[in-house]
């Protein structure tokens, strides 16, 4: 008995000793998946984080889907919510008729997603700074981070005016609460970031490698920078930046206006020479059925394709948002070839391949509910041009499973560089440059018919006011439903030619305070009083 006790005692103490020795090993467990540190150690650069910013751009709705469309396009007189009367009814109040809301999915998301991008860029810049890496690849990646930060702040300052300037990496969430900064200091940050980006980013995306078309370039930084100066009326900076982009020799206008929007199988039409920066989307073979190969996340393309409602199922292409308004259709001269390349008419032919169509005839408009047909009279044809039936078949977005997640968002396109140049030159008194730049756009729009053409005739400079109005009008036709119009009208306010927000949008309910959207209530709530609501809300 005694002996057995001893044995048990020995076993017990042995077990305890083994236990305490192996305890540390038993408890030391790394994640069974990669961490950011693992990825960085494997790559030696900030590549993964940089590419993560493009992921954010493409998948966060504030950049790529309804909230972006609401804020940028639907607020303009060129575009309406679309869809049908039962879908997203509140958007009519909030964005078409300027009864802004303080707490809504679209506006909250818009705000949150832009700050998410800013903080991701801050984190990347912070790591880059602390690692003091100076190899060309890392610098390019830092350039991307600076670009996305500037891009996000620019969108915020346009939408809300003063916002908190978060240009630092923080760990403690309370450090992310800041009062509003002045618009000047926000622009100072944008300038600094775009200066860095324009120096760090490559001239051509090919410098990243062979399959990086669509990745950020100097041209993108300079074009965005020109836009930011346009909003500040720094005309000489706009002019010089536009010239830098033009003189880089990297870009050209496509001969056919509708080619800009082609987005077919195997990436045809994507990242064209007219595209300075494009949100790249992708849907693989049978992506609809597979799900996870649908990398477009539905946002951009699906939101703006024709909505079926009471029409046959082959017209189940998307959600039908961002459609032309009656105003746009009525005031647009039928002789402008861009009109039929921008507006898709219910009950009519899509115009066939010569107008960016696919040879189909749309079902007729029935009523606002689409009871027996389509619920809108017009649709956004720029996106429809990207709706290649072959791509639709290949990706499986057919029949009841509509959608078009493969379509890229052309964020910066070369045409804007010419129109910005024209506007800046005109304001600086350089009528000749303004006339020539405007002509470049009008000639291409006419189908390159040359100076003797009868449609979209050449506009000679006669006065600054005449040229200014002409450029303003051109911007509407060239960029209809691309998200420029509302902010253009705001920055032109007040205008003697009547093309400004107060005049054009007043019938829709616009008032001066509507220049800025109210800051989302959750952001105010979370700041516990540090962040103040915009005036007059």
């Amino acid at each position, binding site marked *: *008995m005694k002996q057995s*006790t001893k044995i*048990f005692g020995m076993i017990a103490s042995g077990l305890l000793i083994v236990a305490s020795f192996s*305890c540390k090993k*038993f*408890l030391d*467990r790394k*994640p*069974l*998946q990669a*961490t*950011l540190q693992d990825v960085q150690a494997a790559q030696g650069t900030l590549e*993964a984080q940089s*590419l993560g910013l493009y*992921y*954010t751009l*493409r998948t966060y709705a504030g950049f790529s889907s309804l909230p972006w469309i609401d804020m940028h396009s639907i607020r303009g007189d060129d575009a309406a919510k679309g869809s*049908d009367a*039962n*879908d997203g*009814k*509140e958007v*009519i109040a*909030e964005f078409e008729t300027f*009864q802004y809301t303080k*707490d809504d*999915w679209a506006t909250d998301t818009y*705000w*949150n*997603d832009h*700050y*998410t991008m800013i903080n991701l860029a801050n984190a990347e810049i912070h790591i880059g700074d602390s690692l003091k890496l100076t190899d060309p690849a890392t610098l390019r990646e830092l350039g991307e981070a600076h670009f996305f930060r500037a891009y996000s702040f620019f969108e915020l300052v346009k939408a809300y005016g003063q916002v908190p300037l*978060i240009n630092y990496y923080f760990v403690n*969430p309370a450090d992310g*609460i800041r009062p509003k900064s002045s618009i000047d200091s926000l622009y100072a940050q944008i300038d600094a970031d775009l200066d860095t980006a324009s120096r760090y980013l490559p001239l051509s995306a090919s410098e990243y490698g062979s*399959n*990086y*078309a669509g990745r950020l370039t100097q041209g993108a930084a300079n074009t965005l920078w020109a836009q930011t100066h346009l909003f500040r009326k720094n005309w000489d900076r706009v002019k010089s930046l536009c010239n830098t982009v033009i003189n880089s020799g990297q870009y050209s206008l496509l001969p056919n206006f509708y080619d800009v929007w082609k987005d077919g199988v195997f990436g045809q039409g994507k990242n064209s020479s007219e595209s300075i920066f494009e949100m*790249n989307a*992708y849907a693989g073979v*049978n992506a609809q*059925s*597979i799900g*996870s190969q649908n*990398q477009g996340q539905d946002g951009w393309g699906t939101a703006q394709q024709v909505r079926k*409602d009471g029409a046959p*199922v082959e017209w189940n292409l998307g959600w039908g948002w961002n459609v032309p308004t009656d105003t746009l259709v009525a005031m647009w001269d039928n002789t402008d070839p861009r009109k039929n390349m921008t507006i898709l008419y219910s009950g009519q032919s899509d115009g066939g391949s010569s107008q960016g169509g696919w040879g189909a005839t749309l079902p007729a408009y029935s*009523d*606002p*509910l689409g*009871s027996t047909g389509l619920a809108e009279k017009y649709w956004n044809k720029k996106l429809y041009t990207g709706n290649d039936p072959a791509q639709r078949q290949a990706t*499986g977005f057919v*029949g*009841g*499973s509509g959608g078009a997640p493969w379509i890229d968002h052309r964020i910066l396109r070369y045409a804007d560089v010419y129109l910005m140049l024209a506007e800046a030159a005109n304001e600086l008194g350089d009528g000749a440059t303004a006339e020539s730049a405007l002509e470049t756009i009008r000639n291409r729009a006419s189908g390159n018919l040359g100076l003797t053409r009868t449609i979209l005739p050449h506009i000679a400079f006669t006065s600054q006011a005449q040229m200014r109005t002409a450029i303003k009008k051109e911007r509407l036709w060239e960029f209809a439903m691309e998200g420029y119009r509302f902010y253009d009208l705001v920055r032109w306010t007040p205008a003697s030619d009547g093309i400004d927000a107060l005049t054009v949008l007043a019938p829709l309910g616009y008032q001066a305070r509507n220049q800025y959207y109210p800051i*989302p209530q*959750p952001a*105010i*709530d*979370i700041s516990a009083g540090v962040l103040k609501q915009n005036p007059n809300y």
Partner: protein
Amino acid sequence: MKKMLTIGGLSPHAVKKALLVMKLTFLLVFVAALQVSANVSGQGRVSLTLKQVEISRVLNSIEKQGTYRFLYNSRLTTIRKKVSVDVTDMTISELLKNMFNGTDLTFKMLENNLIVVVSNSTAPQDIKVTGTVTGASGEPLSGVTVSVKGTANATSTDNNGNFTITVPEKGTLVFSYIGYQTQEVAVNGQAVITAKLAPSTRALDEVVVIGYGQASKRDLTGSIVKIDGKEIADKPNVNPVSSLQSKVAGVYIVNSGDPGQQPDIRIRGTTSIGQVHPLYVVDGIFQDDISYLNANDIESMEVLKDPSSLAIFGVKGATGVIAITTKKARAGQTIINLNSTQGWKKLVDAPKFADATTFKTLYAEELANTGITTPPNFTGLDANTDWIKAVTRTANFQTNNLSISSSTDKNKFSMGLGYTKDQSVVNHIQLDRLNINLSDEYKLNKFIRVGTNLIVSRTHNPYIYDDLGDVNGSNVLNDARQVVPLLGTGTKSFRLKNLYGTDTTNQNIYPLAPTLQLAGVVNPLLKLNNEYNKTIDYTYRYVGSAFAEINFLKYFTWRTTVYGDISDQNKRQYRPTYYAFDPVSLAIQVQNPLTSVQEKSVTTRKFQQDQILTFKSIFNEHSITASGGFTTYYLGNFERDGKAVQGTYGPIPDDKRFWYITTNFEDPATAIASGSQYEYTTVSYLGRILYNYANKYYLTGSYRNDGSSQISGPHRHQGFWAVGAGWELTKENFMASQHIFDFVKLRGSVGVLGNQNTYDPSTGLAAPYLFDEVLTAGTVTPFGNTLYSAAQPAYKPDPDLAWETVHAQEIGFEANALNNRLHVEFNYYNKKTENLMTVITNGALGIFNEVTNAGSLRNWGEEVTASWNQRLTNDLSLRISGNITFMKNRIEALSPLLAGGKIIRTSQNNGQQASYTQPGYPIAYFYGYQQVGIYQSQQDISSSPDASAIGTYHPGDFKFKDVTGDGKIDVDDRTKIGDPSPNFIYGGSVGLTWRHFDLGVDIGGVHGNQIFRTWAALESPYQFVNYAAFQINRWHGPGTSNKVPQVNSGERYNYQGSSYSIESGSYFRIRNVQLAYNFDTKMLAKAYIKNLRIFANVQNLKTWRHNSGFSPEFGGDATSFGVDYGKSSSALPMITSVGLNVTF
């Protein structure tokens, strides 16, 4: 013979001892038989001198002289008596007479000089006793342990309450049974003994499971509630915990209407903002969920609530523990038991939605309100469907169980086989489960016991309609209430091409939801009826353990247990292609044009080992039980997913043979795989001491240190402790003269417990790696048609994280009075949770979520339990019991990192259903505007505070309260509009036994909580849904309503979270009514049946409530619960069942 005796006398070996007893018995019988005929020849003479030696030695010496041989039981105590002998030439009989004088020994001379020495006073005359054990009212009690006092000899009663046991004729039988007072009966030679056990409201000496051991309840200083397995076995609930609702004070249970879904269960309040469900300890192994268990396999469930019993569970103890003991064989008999229940589930009191007429009225009005003049086209929409009815049914519930158990002195064996079928009231959704349970325990010798236990289950998981497993239940009912009543439920025949071939056939197909509600609203029948049987989803689970228990040095026990729990889920889902038609245009649409297959496999492995050393001793008035040991735990979870789409051969056939990724029907280019995996471990040391002095003063103490692989920083190892004290007043002299109280004990305990919360801040699911910057899975970026891997952090890690701690106190008393008929128990508890593991969700700051420690919350309350037992007549007895728990909860502080100082959980498309967790308030309270009415007119609007800060509004819209009183209504006027936690919960039961009948009624309820109803209040702006029936009372002109706003989904002003959505959550329910009949055992004996019981049961017979949803029960997680999303988890049916229980 002599040799045999010697062996018997000296060997300590138990086996041989047993042999001896048998042989000795035989011999005694033999002796008795011989007595009559034996010639007494005791005239031989002996001479002998011995000083102070044992009598046996004397006998031994006589034997050595050669003439006589002796036969005696060496265990007789008097044989060891020391005597001095100094005789010369004395007759042997004279010598023995003298020597035995004054002792109880006598002798008998047999033939051949054989002398048998026996004790005359305690002649070990073992007799066979049979008898019956009944309850107070005469009902037979089965499974009562009948043991011989002071020995290990025991048996248990059969289902008729009968037992047979062999006992020394002067022995004492001890009858013990859970829920009854232990009774001792002196045998005194009776051959038939009938014991009537008094039900004990408080089985004082009842043995309860306390974690890493058992203890007499008397020795504890905390409140532990034990529930007999019988109470849950015959209830129609798949998850055994569901049956505890309203039964135990301090335990708040919200059940789910979905088969296989766990109930939301919280013990003594919401103790965390993370995990709130208790730990389950099933025969020692830690579990988060016990839905794999068969209720019929459960012997007992113990609910542990107080610090002194929970500290031993360390980092997992804070949310309370439910310890479950599965059935093992009872001592001494073979039992075959068959148990079968058939039940019918029916949805009662379902919410009402607009019928065709109401819909048309309201829709026309809505269109007018939104300015649409085109009349709607209702072609083909001429039905009047009750969609809730259309997707629900009278469902079936069924259990069948067979168990066999048998035991001998050395081996206890039991096995069980069970089948459970649980249909949802929602069409086609059904769970099936098969269980096998094996246990065996073997006594190697007096010191070593080994055993194994194995539970195997195969669950056929219910079809998941939504693809995503939503905790709020399936969307079928939510979809059903959204569809307009104008849509018919039937199919329509079309002549169409066979999607799986080339021929054309007549096909009956379902309609889509009409175009007027195209977005997001679906005809639930279309998907359900086409896809419910295309999923094969089984979970196989094997939970096993093996133990060895060694007793040594009299006071010590070493127990080693190893556990394994392997669970494998295998799911194959086939996406068929099928037609649907537009009900208006009759256009045909193909759903899922490309068939596809998805395979999923989830393996979970858990391993646990416990090494526990226990010391147990009683000396003088001191009683000590001390345990110590260590335990390790490993959990690994490995998930793999694969998908493939049809290839060039066309659709993958609708045939189970081909529902795999690779069958050559797939397009290899589309075959993709993904997976996820994690693991974590803990290593823990623990110790506990239970001490009492004179069974009057009790002290307990426990400590546990947990090391966790999930924490790499300074807080990897954390310690938890508790101490408790008890005082049994009734043992004091000053209580001796009173006759009211039979038993009074005061007790209290204090300790620090841990909560191993594991969060995934982005999804709310378990995230095992909170300390590493892991990435969002599957993040890619395309450029052109090339995909690149990208990195997006999944959340922000905090290197200083620690598990949260709960500082808990309990004080209480329990008392039995009036001849133990009244039992009362009272507890006051207070639990302060510190270092709350807080998810910092700061979307508005544009940062990823993280988990940090900070903040505290407090739960406190009182629990009262009382019961009364009385036998009214010989045939009639009554049991009444009740419990009530008053509970309060308050957030004391929250992390300063939590910007805004509160946790805001929102749901619905526009985030208007808000649950706030904020210091000074109860957890997860509802936040929004106070509705005071409806604006009746433009004039009403102008004379009221301006509300334009919220949005544009018109007559017919909500009038909110100006809470701040600043003359305008804006976001600052939002306030607390409800609290999802009840003020008190209660339950009770009444039991009547009359002859063979048994009637039990259980009631329960909660009071003082609110429900936030999102449907018919906060619909998504992206869809148009059917109206709730009550919306007919909408405002449609001055004076028409001051509560329900105008119908106008374009008026988003009305889609603010407000008190309009708040409904009372109080309810009172007749939870269960059961009538049983126990057949007369004499009659049954002819059919070789020991026992037969039939019963009928109704669960959720009637609920009195104030809310408009399916039921008043809405669970959730810690910081968002009590929200009515109109989903199926709250669709709790009434279940009528009948069953029988037969024992052979």
